């Protein structure tokens, strides 16, 4: 059976979303099953229309221009590209916490971009975290 990774993705900033994307991609290369549980701030990025508008940094916000230019120069994929690539390579499920979605005006599956698999309650996240071989909170 494939090893399982569970991610609690609380953050909706571009740097942390990118980190999540890199980690998920690494898991995909390793053929792990990945379950992402998107919590409060993170949900904003997954609401239709917002996916390309994510522009805050969690740290060093005064260095944002340099940070973004460096990502670009190093040819680093966007957070969304990482998620899509990983989904093509392995079993990645993106689940949005129902409360988190509501905070950003999204209530139903059609309110989210197509990489989202389900809207869930907190119990599912806890169960997944219990079952996982590795668990990250980002």
């Amino acid at each position, binding site marked *: 059976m494939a090893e399982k990774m569970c991610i609690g993705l609380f953050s909706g900033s571009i740097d942390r979303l990118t980190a999540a994307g890199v980690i998920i991609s690494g898991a*995909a*290369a390793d053929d792990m099953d990945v379950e992402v549980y998107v919590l409060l701030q993170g949900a904003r990025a997954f609401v239709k229309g917002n996916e390309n508008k994510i522009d805050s940094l969690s740290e060093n916000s005064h260095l944002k221009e340099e940070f973004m230019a460096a990502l670009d120069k190093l040819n680093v994929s966007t957070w969304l590209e990482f998620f899509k690539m990983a989904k093509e390579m392995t079993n990645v499920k993106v689940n949005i916490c129902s409360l988190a979605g509501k905070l950003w005006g999204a209530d139903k599956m059609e309110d989210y971009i197509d990489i989202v698999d389900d809207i869930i309650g907190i119990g599912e996240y806890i169960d997944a975290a219990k079952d996982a071989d590795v668990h990250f909170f980002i």
Partner: protein
Amino acid sequence: MTTEELNNLEVKKIVDARGTACPGPLLAAKKAISEIAAGDIMEILSADEGTRKDIPKWATKKGHDYLGTVEESGFFKIFMKKG
């Protein structure tokens, strides 16, 4: 394997991932390995220091043979045989 032996291998597929940083080369390697047959040799070009350790480790874990790495100026070539 010596550098000379590695350089003389009959390579089935070359993956040039010098344009990307970690995890780009690993993802490129993972994608490309599915396009060759067992026993074929693949060469990955990378300029990313993290990849230098990641790819041999990944290859071994996935049942492929890591054959060696050749250092060039500004990048390196990682050789593996599909298991």
